[in-house]
């Protein structure tokens, strides 16, 4: 896992540094007006910034020289000194976000992460609470009218992209019916505290939450249904029924346990995704979340921020795989690793 992480970090760093962009130039350009009658001064400032950012360093003759990409990568990791100091990821420095007023990346991410998690946790719990029983119900009543109706509903939800659902729901529930606010995260100008604040936040999050849940229903319900349908045809289920075991026990103890393996992958994937923002949704609803930060950082070439986020997602992904493997073992003793 560590090796994969190191390789990923190197690849990410190299790829993002291929983008034709020079942060030192961008910073110096901001002060162009002050140097309008002193172009040499602006060039000097540019060089100063390049040195400060570790893009260049002075050689033994005092001449500025470009620092190679690999050394910059090591400097970013904290394995090589930048301006005489080891100050990289290993030392807890994930860089500076230039788009967000030159504040440390981790400081900038704290609040969007909270918002994203707040939204996603509710969404995931709500979606799972609906889809798993619904999927099981459909599998058990496969071919019934209710199953067919749910199939229509889920396939529509599965087929329509998130942002279309969002636009439709805004139009219907916010613009036309006025049940929910069109965007935002709290009542403008409110200074609620405690439960009142929480409820206000929930009210503003309701529509995005409904959209997210609605958008997730189709896929998960169908997935659970398919998995359950297969499990219900297994020999052990047939045997259990033949032995006269109660149907409830057959479904939830025998079939559901067997149907869990494919579902676990998805469910854990969902829980992992509570850290990931939705670019579309956050922009449509004006939410200050991780997806919005990522897209804004990419647009603004805020590379430290982008790299930090990508690395975070890579780590979460790797961790997710590990958890999935462990969960398989818990759900199905046959998959446990032999000692």
């Amino acid at each position, binding site marked *: 896992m560590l090796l994969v992480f190191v390789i990923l970090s190197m690849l990410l760093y190299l790829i993002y540094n291929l983008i*034709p962009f020079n942060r030192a*130039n961008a910073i110096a350009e901001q002060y162009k007006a002050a140097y309008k009658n002193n172009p040499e001064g602006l060039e000097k400032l540019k060089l100063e910034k390049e040195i400060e950012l570790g893009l260049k360093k002075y050689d033994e003759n005092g001449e500025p020289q470009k620092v190679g990409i690999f050394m910059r990568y090591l400097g970013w990791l904290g394995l090589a000194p930048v301006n005489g100091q080891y100050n990289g990821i290993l030392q807890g420095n994930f860089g500076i976000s230039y788009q967000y007023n030159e504040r440390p990346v981790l400081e900038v991410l704290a609040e969007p992460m909270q918002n994203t998690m707040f939204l996603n946790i509710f969404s995931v719990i709500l979606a799972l609470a609906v889809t798993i029983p619904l999927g099981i119900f459909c599998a058990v009543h496969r071919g019934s009218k209710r199953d067919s109706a749910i199939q229509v509903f889920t396939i529509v939800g599965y087929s329509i992209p998130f942002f279309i659902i969002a636009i439709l729901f805004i139009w219907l529930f916010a613009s036309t019916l006025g049940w929910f606010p069109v965007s935002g995260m709290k009542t403008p100008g409110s200074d609620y505290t405690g439960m009142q604040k929480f409820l206000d936040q929930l009210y503003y999050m309701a529509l995005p939450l409904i959209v997210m849940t609605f958008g997730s229903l189709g896929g998960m319900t169908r997935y659970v249904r398919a998995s359950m349908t297969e499990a219900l045809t297994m020999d052990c289920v047939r045997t259990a029924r033949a032995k006269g075991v109660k149907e409830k026990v057959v479904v939830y103890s025998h079939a559901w346990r067997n149907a869990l393996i494919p579902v676990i992958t998805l469910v854990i994937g969902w829980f992992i995704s509570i850290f990931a923002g939705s670019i579309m949704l956050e922009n449509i609803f004006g939410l200050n979340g991780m997806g919005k930060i990522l897209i804004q950082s990419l647009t603004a070439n805020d590379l430290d921020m982008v790299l930090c986020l990508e690395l975070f997602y890579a780590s979460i992904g790797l961790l997710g795989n590990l958890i999935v493997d462990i969960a398989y073992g818990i759900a199905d003793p046959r998959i446990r690793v032999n000692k």
Partner: protein
Amino acid sequence: MKTKVLALLLVLLMLVPCVLAACGDKEGTNSTSSGATANESTGDSSDASSGATTDTSTETVTKDYDMPEQDESVLDEDWNKVIIGSTTDLSGDFRFPGYGGSSAVASDIDINNLTVGYSTMEVDRYGAYQWNETAVASHTEEEDSDGNFVITVKINEGLKFSDGTEVKAVNYLAYVLAYSSPVVKANKHPAMAGNAFVGFNDFNNYSGEGSPAEVKDEDGNVVAHPCKEFKGIRLLGDYEFSITIAAPTYYPYYYADTYGAISPYPLDLIVGEGVEVKDDGNGAYLTDAWYAKADGSTDDALLWAKADLLKEARYDVSKYAFSGPYVISNWDSSTKEITLKVNKYYAGNWEGQKPPIGTIVYTKVVQETQMDAIKNGQVDIISGLTGGDVVNAAIDLAKTDGFSECHYDRAGYGKIQFDCDFSPAMFTEVRQAVSYLINKEEFASTFTGGYGAVVYGPYAVVMPQYKDVEQDLQIEPYDYSIANAKKVLEDGGWVYNSKGEAYAEGGTGVDSVRYKKLEGDEASEANIAFASVSNDDGITYKTVKVGDDYYMPLVLNWFGTDNNNVTDMLSAILVSGDGPKQIGMVVRSTTGDFDALTGQVYRDPDYGYADPPKYSMYNLATGWNSAIYDYAFNWRLDPAWFDNSVNKLYDEYDVAFPYDEHTGLTYEEAMEQSDGKLGMDYLSMAMVYSVEPGDTENYNKWWKAYIERWNYLEPDIPLYGNVYYDLYNSKIEHLQTSAYFGPASAVLYCTVKKPA
């Protein structure tokens, strides 16, 4: 049957978005007619506004806006609140937006304007700097014996910060001193706050006791004598100070008095505890505690004890006092929303206006749904609406009860920009020919949905300079004309084919375009290497050598930004349109992101540029946030400036009559001596450096000549200027915005109707 029902249901559901979209289109169609009407009424906003006459202490001025009085008894009422919606996120950089650079977020600037007051000069609604009579008791402007420009300011006694402490002269000087010293570099500030003042270099290089006696550059020349005192800044008393603007670099300069625009800040915000602003007669200075070093500081790498204060101060929202009309009551960085409460100690802005509205909430809205947000009452004001559909919707809403709108011309325009140092774009006639190919009225109308206007030079119609000389301005509109385009090309020598023979219309392959014989310096390396790019039709046009002569094809390599309507519209006219073919020209289009475009404009290898230059035409936009119009150093021929200039224009008039050799002439003298041939560099430099502050009459002469010369040379082609609409809840009264005066400024003059 079941399958059919399913399929039908699916189709119906899929059709819903299409039907919705179609409804949207319907509205768009309607916009054409109502748009035209609205466009005609663009100039009516001032007529419609109610006039008011207000006496100032010096003269009677007729104002075309209202100045409602503050009613202290209703400031704390819940209803006396306005929620401003902004599509730009607040970033929290309210104390010093941009922190010395130009990258400030517009919404942060709004908050800064609402929380910082008593500046010696303030920008009025027309973009002009005005001396602030509320803060300044008197001021004098004079030249000293060295030719420097000295502004002495006496501030009024009794002005107070939001915590009730008095505003004194030291509060004005602390920021300029601190943010000119190397200490602030600890927080990545450029330390250039006072760079126009006498003694800046010496002060800027002073790092506390033990500073070297002199600082030398790489060539060994002494560039500074580090000094604790800032000679150009004087603390003359509790309520009096002066600044001295350095000649000749920063004075004479038409806008020199704007260097005197200084805002007061609480001392603890700027310099923290233990530091004083003093003056022993040689200039103001900060006491030694300011320069205290932190642990681990070395001579090579100075670490400052004040570094933490600087970080804290930049993002402070509550610890330190405010001087403006409002104070920050709550900043929610999570939702990007700020609440401001009126500063009851605030004595008024430059014309004495105090805010009648008790609470301002500034919150984020989503561009696509902001109209619904105002309709639903989530916000009270949305601003900067543009584009046919959006503006039509805003006007429709404003026609209903409960909503109103105001609109104004944008101080800026979208344009085609040329690199004028190589390729066919280096020739004036080619740029003029391109201009003739574009029906700019139609372009502007289409792009802005009928809510836009065209300008014919580097100005905005709202500029006071333009208004002053509008009647006398002699400019060519370059109205759409194939015949004129051909004529200017033929007059310019574009009369050959690729074999050096006479050009004949209807040619094919590389001979479908005109060629020009390159004379003398025109046969530069870049021009000899010039070739068309993005040759999707398989034809590569390039400079050809016939005998000893080089012939350059009439091809423009254009770089545009992708996902941009202007790029698409220009492409329809210049790439796939018939106009260029008719005049023997080809435009090749390449698109990329904005960074790639700027990389080509500034020829920066870090952004993907590689020699020789390929592109000489771009589509961009430009704008002004005040009426200051200063293009000095933009047209210098010296490579130090020229290589970094935007247009890289080589004006032959500047070679014949260079500014550096003919400085200090009046407009009439310069015109006479140059035989009426003043170049872009001369005009732009003289416009600001040959005119005394306040001498608008002479400034306007230069400005007019500059605009006319620019209009002839066409280094850019202005395409459209938008009309912006601000929509607001009718409970707000007296709201009048302008290009320089957005809702966050205009609310100072507004009241809220008390609910029945």
